């Protein structure tokens, strides 16, 4: 009999039957009558200078918070990305009355919080300390000085942060993910780098602050243990007479405002669309224990879109925070691939976005991407179940009620209503509208807002371990490599020393392995390597005989897996699938192998070799020689600058699933008959294979039949 193996902990316990008789434990208790969810009130009024004040009175805790927010549109930072971060970072670093140190002492002394941002600030304190904090809030908002010394400090700290970003896979995924979602031509997709930060000046940061921190686009939000009358008095006392800085503005040819020190204010142009065919983007982080995966695309979804609520329900079912969401259930609870898988579908006034992702172990990276994409597509194709819909709606209704615990929620609702131009009763009708969301409308939302075929799939992980398996998941059948700044990856390289050419590198290699004389004495060669592959031992033996005969046999035990023979003219390959004569590129390829030392024969083979810089390979400086074969294929070889030995070969291999990168590392060179041979060959084509030499024999004589093509 086959039953699921169950572990019953109850068997160990004595359960008194009498006592449980009163309770039917077999089913969940019924809910009581639904409690009424009361949306708290807010008051709102406008000051003479145009600043809007929002007040939420709540006396539960003796605390008051003040938020100042300016409605600033996204503005391109161009080649000076990072200056807007510094606007916020330095906002609380000095005023016309106080130094940074004095501000810090005051805030901490009040046991308060004061956090600056590039569109305002947030402050909170106990009620008794709030008046003093409010003095400071006003001072910071209206007379921040951006002291040069503080600017230099903050910039250095930010440069350090940019450098440290390379260490953190989540940060890389976040930054590159945004670049891939929006593109770098849209403000949300711009990436701060060392180069852009170095161009930022204090004057520019200060000019942005002065230009945008203006009462007519400002909001003051007061929440907590404060009456409406007190709030009015506070707002009037501080902000009513504030005019904002006078900033002279000219216009450029495109009718943009131009501000001294800041340049033209280039606002976001048309929102990016998800139109590119699906691609796999990869950022290499060697040695990663996990791959961080994201599927992203921009979405045409504004907060006041009539389908915004349906979009939210859709995302809740797909992966938006509930444990029973599809991504979590599939990737965690069913497959055990990850600690957590989530999605987000965010509405935004300028450009909405979708992101779904998780962190998974290397071995299941491709499977996890497959499942992620499957779920995004599946929810478009098939209607969600009534059960899923009911759970998502209850959960969202519950979250709505829970969020009201914090009085700041009411203020946030009010602010959102103004900023996003929502109907006045948007939040008051939330629960009622949620109730009407149907299976059909969720599917409509899925079809409108999800674009799995246009997703950019980003993976941050160990390229050698996982990248190759991802090519089939891209519509271009290849993996595109990015650096941590979201730019196409270019291997960092230095110019080779003057006088070095591909030929001198190849000559140096021949010298390093023993010299041309010794190499030319090799008349025949037998190399036997073994590797362990999925638990079985594989033996590969290669035979060469001068001038250009070649054979290779791969075996496991008594079974021949693959055999190649080349007699100098014709070639034949045989294996489990039968026997076939080599033609075209296959024949070209074997001609290279037919030389025991092909590096001596690139000219004979009609190969073109080019020295393409000095790069780092496994911590060693190496010459990179790019070779174009006569068949048109391209591969790179890497020669250790110190020893002259070949340490790596990288070539692309096309297959039906996609293009793979094969990386072969050579090490552990040992002499045989005065010539050095690599005793360890590690090959990575998605899976690691390490071949160890078990025998390398030179000039022992090989029977002619070894090279007979039948």
């Amino acid at each position: 009999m086959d039953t699921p193996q169950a572990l019953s902990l109850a068997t160990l316990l004595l359960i008194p039957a009498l006592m449980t008789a009163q309770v039917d434990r077999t089913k969940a208790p019924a809910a009581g009558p639904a409690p009424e969810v009361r949306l708290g009130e807010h008051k709102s009024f406008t000051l003479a200078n145009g600043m809007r004040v929002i007040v939420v009175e709540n006396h539960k805790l003796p605390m008051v918070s003040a938020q100042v927010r300016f409605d600033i549109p996204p503005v391109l930072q161009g080649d000076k990305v990072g200056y807007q971060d510094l606007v916020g970072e330095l906002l609380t670093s000095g005023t016309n009355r106080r130094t940074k140190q004095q501000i810090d002492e005051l805030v901490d002394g009040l046991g308060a919080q004061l956090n600056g941002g590039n569109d305002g600030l947030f402050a909170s304190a106990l009620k008794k300390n709030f008046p003093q904090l409010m003095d400071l809030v006003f001072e910071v908002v209206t007379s921040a000085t951006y002291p040069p010394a503080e600017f230099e400090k903050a910039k250095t700290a930010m440069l350090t942060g940019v450098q440290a970003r390379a260490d953190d896979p989540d940060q890389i995924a976040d930054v590159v993910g945004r670049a891939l979602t929006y593109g770098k031509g849209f403000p949300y997709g711009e990436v701060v780098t060392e180069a852009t930060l170095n161009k930022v000046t204090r004057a520019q940061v200060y000019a942005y602050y002065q230009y945008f921190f203006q009462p007519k686009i400002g909001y003051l939000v007061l929440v907590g243990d404060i009456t409406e009358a007190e709030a009015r008095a506070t707002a009037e006392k501080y902000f009513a007479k504030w005019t904002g800085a006078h900033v002279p503005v000219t216009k450029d040819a495109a009718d943009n405002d131009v501000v001294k020190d800041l340049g033209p204010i280039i606002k976001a142009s048309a929102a990016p669309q998800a139109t590119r065919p699906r691609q796999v983007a990869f950022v290499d982080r060697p040695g990663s224990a996990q791959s961080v995966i994201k599927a992203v695309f921009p979405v045409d979804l504004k907060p006041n879109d009539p389908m915004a609520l349906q979009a939210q329900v859709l995302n809740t079912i797909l992966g938006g925070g509930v444990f029973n969401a599809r991504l979590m259930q599939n990737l965690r609870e069913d497959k055990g691939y990850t600690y957590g898988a989530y999605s987000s579908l965010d509405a935004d006034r300028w450009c909405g976005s979708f992101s779904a992702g998780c962190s998974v172990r290397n071995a299941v990276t491709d499977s996890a991407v497959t499942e992620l994409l499957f779920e995004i597509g599946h929810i478009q194709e098939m209607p969600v179940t009534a059960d899923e819909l009911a759970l998502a709606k209850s959960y969202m209704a519950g979250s709505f009620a829970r969020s009201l615990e914090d009085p700041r929620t009411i203020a946030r609702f009010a602010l959102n209503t103004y900023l996003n131009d929502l109907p006045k009763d948007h939040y008051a009708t939330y629960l009622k509208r949620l109730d009407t969301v149907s299976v059909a409308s969720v599917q409509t939302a899925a079809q409108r807002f999800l674009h799995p075929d246009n997703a950019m799939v980003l993976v941050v992980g160990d390229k050698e371990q996982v990248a190759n398996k991802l090519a089939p998941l891209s519509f271009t059948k290849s993996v595109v490599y990015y650096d941590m700044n979201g730019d196409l990856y270019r291997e960092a390289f230095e110019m080779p020393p003057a006088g070095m050419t591909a030929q001198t590198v190849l000559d140096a290699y021949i010298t390093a392995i023993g010299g041309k004389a010794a190499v030319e004495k090799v008349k025949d060669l037998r190399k036997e390597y073994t590797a362990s592959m999925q638990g079985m031992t594989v033996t590969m033996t290669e035979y060469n005989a001068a001038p250009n005969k070649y054979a290779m046999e791969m075996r496991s035990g008594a079974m021949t897996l693959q055999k190649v023979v080349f007699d100098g003219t014709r070639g034949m390959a045989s294996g489990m699938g039968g026997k076939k004569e080599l033609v075209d590129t296959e024949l070209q390829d074997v001609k290279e192998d037919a030389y025991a030392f092909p590096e001596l024969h690139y000219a004979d083979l009609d190969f073109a070799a080019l020295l393409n810089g000095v790069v780092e390979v496994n911590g060693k400086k190496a010459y990179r020689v790019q070779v174009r074969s006569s068949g048109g294929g391209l591969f790179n070889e890497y020669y250790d600058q110190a020893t002259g030995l070949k340490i790596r070969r990288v070539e692309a291999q096309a297959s039906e699933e996609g293009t793979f990168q094969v990386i072969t590392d050579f090490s552990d060179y040992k002499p045989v008959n005065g010539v050095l041979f690599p005793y360890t060959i590690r090959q990575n084509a998605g899976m690691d294979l390490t071949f160890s030499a078990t025998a390398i024999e030179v000039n022992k004589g090989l029977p002619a039949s070894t090279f007979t093509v039948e």
Partner: protein
Amino acid sequence: MAAITAGAQTREIKFTEFDLPNGLHVILHEDHSTPIVAVSVMYHVGSKDEAKDRRGFAHFFEHLLFEGSDNIGRGEFSKYVEKAGGVLNANTNGDRTYYYEVLPSNQVELGLWLESERMMHARVEAKGIETQREVVKEERRQRFENQPYGSILPEVLRRAYTEHPYQWPTIGFMEDLNAASEKDYQTFYKTFYVPNNAVLVLAGDIDAKKAPDLVKKYFAAIPKGGTIPRTKIVEPPMKGEVRDVVYDRIQLPAVVEAYRIPAYGTKDFYAVDMLNRLLSNGNSSRLVKNVKDAEQKAVYVGSFSLPFEQPGLAIAFAIANMGVSADTLEASMERQFALVRDTPVSAAELDKLKAQVETEFISANARMSGIAENLASAYTFLDGTKQVDTEIEQYLAVTAADLQRVAKQYFVPQNRVVLHYLPQSQKK
């Protein structure tokens, strides 16, 4: 100090509490401002209660206890909660395991049923064990192995303790979880997941008069467990400074200093905790102001105390600014430690610490989920549940002399572990 307490704005958390005959302690807090209720259970079991060869078991077990019960199928537990419009989660540390749901208040009985099922007859299938083992491995990779500086806590703990089970991290080690057998699960459940080792809290929109009957309805039938075994291991004092280098996949060096400190709830713990605030709470704190801001030796610096119920640690951690070596950074930090040992803090600075504590104390009780956990912790680890309201007095009672005394007693080289985190490329 008198001035501060006189003007102190505090908020009393009213509660009632009682024990069921089976030993379950119950705490009720009634508050109708939002129609929600937090239902939580704190089991007094954590990673320090694990066998030496079952490290990580308490946390793994927490994952398993969402799998189901005699009456709840695999995966149904979370479904009941989310369908009712609630949220649920759990967490484990060295001392305790904490489960909670926050539900609409008309679903309080659902919360009681779920938690009583978990306590009474949890049930785990082989598929659940295998899956959660993989999930915990991913949790370990995600939180510790794939993060820069992610190994700090495990690296500190294994050097700071030689005898006490605090020497291993709560997440544990995979070989131990792989080795766990059915018997381990049964023993652990039978020993620790018993009413006399737990506290149940209901906080929120409840009727505190009717609630006791509801609690009895679901929990009274659960039999009392045996005497709870508590670890008797006392960690001997450190024999001198332990110093080591850890190579990580990082570019910026970091310095970690871990000082052994007294247990949570003791007088000196509060003084040490205040000292940590002095060192790194807010931009005007000693380490932030000097090491990070004035001297620019660090891009991040922080110090905090681990509130363990048996003697724990205070950990200071700093990441070097560009071009600053670990040695230079450590010297800069050490100047601040020396200063607190050598010079008493001013009255104004002490007042600042008290103002910070006061604000923290009030904000910590802003939500029902926070109140529920604070009540459960106060009952489990402090001198009674009432400490949820009175613990602040122990902070406010700390004097300048206390701060200097604990600095001299605990924040000294011979009582610490110092780790330098260096880039792998510097490995010789």
